[in-house]
């Protein structure tokens, strides 16, 4: 029982990280119909920014994190403005290639930066090496914080999209850009802001993940697990991304313990195949039928 609890718990914790990266994909996809392959690398950069602020500069943990989030939001907005806007309206393929390029460049630049490089770095959190005992299971406080922080972020995002003028403008833009323009919504600026928001969410995921996997140039490959999460939830659904992330996290955690070695890494993709077979639009996907 304690074992089961432990696995569930760590599954949810890692699932939260997948969920946040998937959320970043979904935000950008819904608003701009672009699949951002650099999402994982934005997460990695977020980790490095936080590492720089807390460890290299020596700021207190929370201050460092907030600065890293702001810096990443700006980075996301700049990326949209400088790299993506010029290819706006080009073929889908062009835009996707550009995002893949952004990811490669980010990885390359990180390894070249003095103080960053190819090493693995640790961000020391205020909760490091503390353990909470619940029902016989020993839970690392770092993991518990991932879950709590994710829940808080989701609540804030929910309120933001539900009640704020700009959040509603973002939803409107994602449903119909032309109509949004004529409601007086500055669609281009909204797209820039969405990239900023998405980059900040990805950075948050990177910061949460840092105590577990540490910060390194290739940590962005976790984005490959966030893809299945987004697909399981139904690409384009925000709650779907969260639930999808948790499912992938849990499945991976259980597969790693109960199934033979090797299953852990492919479990996520087996789930995706099953979901696509039985519910092709994903768990929360919008059923769109072309009206003729």
């Amino acid at each position, binding site marked *: 029982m304690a074992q089961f609890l432990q696995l569930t718990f760590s599954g949810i914790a890692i699932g939260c990280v997948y969920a946040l990266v998937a959320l970043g994909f979904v935000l950008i996809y819904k608003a701009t119909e672009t699949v951002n392959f650099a999402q994982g690398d934005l997460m990695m950069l977020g980790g490095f920014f936080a590492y720089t602020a807390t460890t290299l500069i020596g700021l207190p943990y929370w201050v460092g994190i907030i600065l890293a989030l702001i810096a990443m939001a700006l980075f996301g907005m700049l990326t949209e403005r400088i790299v993506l806007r010029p290819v706006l309206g080009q073929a889908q393929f062009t835009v996707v290639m550009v995002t893949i390029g952004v990811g490669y460049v980010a990885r390359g630049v990180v390894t070249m930066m003095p103080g960053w490089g190819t090493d693995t770095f640790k961000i020391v959190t205020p909760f490091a090496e503390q353990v909470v005992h619940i029902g016989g299971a020993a839970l690392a406080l770092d993991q518990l914080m991932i879950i709590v922080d994710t829940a808080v972020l989701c609540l*804030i995002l929910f*309120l*933001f999209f539900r*009640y*704020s*003028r*700009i959040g*509603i*403008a973002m*939803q*409107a833009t994602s*449903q*119909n850009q*032309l*109509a*949004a*323009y*004529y*409601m*007086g*919504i*500055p*669609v*281009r600026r909204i797209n820039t802001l969405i990239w900023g928001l998405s980059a900040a969410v990805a950075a948050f995921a990177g910061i949460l993940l840092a105590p577990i996997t540490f910060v390194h140039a290739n940590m962005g490959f976790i984005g490959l697990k966030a893809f299945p999460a987004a697909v399981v939830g139904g690409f384009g659904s925000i709650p779907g991304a969260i639930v999808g992330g948790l499912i992938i996290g849990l499945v991976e955690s259980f597969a790693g313990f109960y199934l033979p070695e090797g299953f852990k890494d492919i479990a996520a993709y087996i789930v995706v195949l099953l979901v696509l077979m039985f519910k092709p639009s994903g768990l929360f996907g*919008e059923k769109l039928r072309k009206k003729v």
Partner: protein
Amino acid sequence: MSFFKAENLSIQFGGVKAVTNVSFEVQQGEVFTIIGPNGAGKTTIFNLISLIYPPTSGRITFEGREITGMTPHRVANLGIARTFQNIELFEHASVLQNLLIGRHNHTATRLWQELLFMPSVRRAEIEHREAVEKVIDFLDLQHHRDSMVAGLPYGVRKVVELGRALCIGPKLLLLDEPSSGLNPEETDDMAFWIEDIKKDLGVTVLMVEHDMSLVSRVSDRVLALAQGEMLSIGTSREVQSDPKVIEAYLGKPE
């Protein structure tokens, strides 16, 4: 100072001259209609006026201010609303939500106030809801208030789009073929509403339309186009009896 003025508008797509030297003025409080046979450039003119395309030459002024080259969202802020021939609504939202988006420009609350749901936000919210309810009553949309747009019949969606444009609180309303896709009964309702929009709400209407019975019923003045050029301008009767217009629609008498 004229209310709305287009001067020497022209646009070329490659070698194709879609619109050539079109000039007209719309007076405040009138219904001004642009007519013409298929391919005359009606929709192109409309897209020029609503700033989807920049004109190759010419300028557009609204209340004495030049608006050529502005982005479409700034136009909404100036008090110009539009509808679309093929309906552009927010499909996965309710009718009420669609109409409330029309109030976007009138929202001045700050993000932190909204997230904390401050009293000022609540007051503003109630005001917006009242403005929207007026439009719902005006267009008889009560039954559809909470329906998802995606599930509504075409005729109702057309009315919802008109309602959303009205929620902006426009001074000038641009209607792109308001009767297209409607049955005769719905077209009749549309004519009533356009008359009421002019009389009761005092909104100036500039529209593109091909249904001549609707045109002659609601329009104060009509501009006829053919092949991107101005043929005739005047009252509906004058334009319809102009030999040049008859020729453009029906061809030369043999």
